[in-house]
């Protein structure tokens, strides 16, 4: 998946670069665009569009988890590359924001870099890789390991906003089901999973109940991150570009993952720690290191990992290095691996 993303990201970065060239003259330091001068408006979108999206976002915040339609704009990149998230970011970003963009937990994958460059080019805002410093975090597939705080906004890129789509192809019907609070279908999906795998094997995009009322997709984050949504002090905004839907989880909203009383929701866990920073409680990625089957497990959140290494270097906390005793040949605990296997949910990007 990553390899594919890199290829996509590469062209995205080029495009970001070319926009900068077009804009060459600058004029990106105010909230008002350069207007008739032929340049782009602040944050690319025109003010009317931003206003319309903000209006949709206000409604989304008012009805947590409810999918609000909006008239998404054509963006200078294809659908599936985060157009929904970018439009949401562009609508809420201001000159004082500090922006962080991550993809699969990493600030330096090509996708993250190109989206960050895009926003920086069109707004001139400060960017960072530090979760703590950021005021606005656009993300694909992860929630940072560092705790979020009040005032921060998370923006998610969502490929399929409808959690029931897999079992109910009709949009009219899913909207009716949401309206009537009929979520038997959600449990049907879980039933199938347990019947087939002996457990709920959805590892990405694990559906949640927002504020006890609306079922929602948390976007393709690993289910490891689901608990971070529950009563989070930050504001979480979700943008689906192709489907033209936005929805929100306001601060301190109760977010519950769907489960059975006899098959309760649980997060992924590993019987090892990060081989770089030694973290035993973060989400790990499996990295193939050579073509002889060598591999290592490291934090998916690169900022979190570096922070820990830095702090250990200054003697701030804990020991560095692998703390787990297992050797490289051991497998992760349970059937859920770091690269989640047997995923039934729509894990990751196609």
């Amino acid at each position, binding site marked *: 998946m990553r390899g594919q993303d890199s290829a996509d990201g590469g062209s995205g970065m080029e495009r970001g670069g070319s926009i900068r060239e077009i804009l060459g003259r600058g004029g990106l330091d105010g909230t008002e665009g350069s207007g008739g001068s032929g340049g782009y408006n602040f944050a690319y979108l025109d003010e009317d569009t931003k206003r319309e999206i903000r209006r949709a976002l206000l409604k989304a915040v008012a009805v947590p988890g409810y999918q609000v339609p909006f008239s998404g704009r054509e963006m200078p990149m294809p659908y599936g590359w985060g157009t929904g998230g970018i439009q949401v970011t562009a609508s809420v970003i201001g000159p004082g924001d500090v922006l962080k963009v991550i993809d699969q937990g990493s600030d330096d994958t090509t996708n993250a870099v190109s989206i960050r460059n895009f926003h920086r080019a069109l707004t001139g805002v400060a960017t960072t890789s530090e979760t703590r410093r950021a005021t606005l975090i656009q993300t694909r597939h992860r929630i940072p390991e560092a705790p979020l705080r009040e005032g921060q906004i998370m923006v998610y890129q969502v490929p399929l906003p409808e959690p029931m789509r897999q079992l109910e192809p009709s949009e009219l019907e899913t909207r009716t089901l949401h309206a009537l609070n*009929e979520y038997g279908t959600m449990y049907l999906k879980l039933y199938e999973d347990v*019947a087939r795998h002996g457990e709920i094997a959805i590892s990405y995009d694990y559906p949640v109940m927002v504020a006890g009322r609306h079922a929602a997709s948390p976007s393709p984050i690993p289910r490891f991150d689901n608990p971070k949504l529950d009563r989070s002090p930050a504001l979480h905004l979700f943008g689906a570009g192709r489907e033209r839907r936005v929805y929100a989880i306001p601060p301190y909203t109760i977010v519950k993952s769907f489960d*059975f009383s006899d098959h309760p929701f649980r997060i992924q866990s590993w019987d090892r720690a990060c081989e770089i920073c030694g973290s035993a409680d973060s989400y790990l990625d499996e990295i193939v290191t050579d073509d002889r089957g060598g591999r290592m497990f490291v934090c998916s959140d690169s900022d979190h990992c570096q922070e820990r290494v830095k702090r250990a270097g200054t003697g701030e906390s804990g020991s560095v290095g692998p703390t787990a005793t297992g050797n490289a040949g051991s497998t992760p605990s349970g059937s859920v691996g770091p690269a989640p296997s047997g995923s039934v949910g729509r894990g990751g990007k196609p």
Partner: protein
Amino acid sequence: MNEKPVLSASRVSCLYGSKAGCLDVSLEVFPGEILALVGESGSGKTTVLKAVSGQLKPSAGKVTYRDGQGLELDVHGLSEGRRRLMLRTELGFVHQNPRDGLNMAVSAGANVADRLLSGGERSYGRARSKALDWLDRVEIARDRLDDRPGLYSGGMLQRLQIARNLVTGPRLVFLDEPTGGLDASVQARLLDLIRELAAGLRLAAVLVTHDLAVARLLSQRLMVMKEGRVIESGVTDQVLDDPHEPYTQLLVSSILDS
């Protein structure tokens, strides 16, 4: 016999533009009783079935359902949410083509568990054991529980559809040509199953069929429809053995020769 009907329709008419689907049809169904609607295709029996099951709003007339608590509900005056809740808990609908009544994208077990989960069942183990229980009752092998229904035969599909409908213990079931399109031996087995379940669960049922032999074996009362109207009704064997209307006599003489 002071029982009250589970379902009553009073002077129901359904008009399609200027064409009448059914005219001035009244009927009552009591607990533990199967009422058959017979007539040739186009006689309006399916229209009546749709109207009394809440799927088609009649142009005139009223359909009343009496729920488990004895509350009388105007089927066409309910909110959408209440109507749907009623459809998946207290009512059942067995379609002629089981594919119309089943979710072919999920396993047989999930098909049976569906109504339980919709009704708030949150234990996988309980939902699954009830699904297994119902597979037994409709004589489907237990090891077929996790198969997709697409792998089932026609007779098995129909039995699965019946299990899916009955798992929530509905009080009233609509049967639309339930044995249509099945070969004779499969049909006999299914008839026996429906009869046994209906009697055992004291189900009330409305059966639509063009097969008078099916109506004779399953139903206690019968209504004969022609051109949207009920032209003759009574105890099933009486109507079939002593038909009074020319049309009923024609039906009986042309179909019942066994």
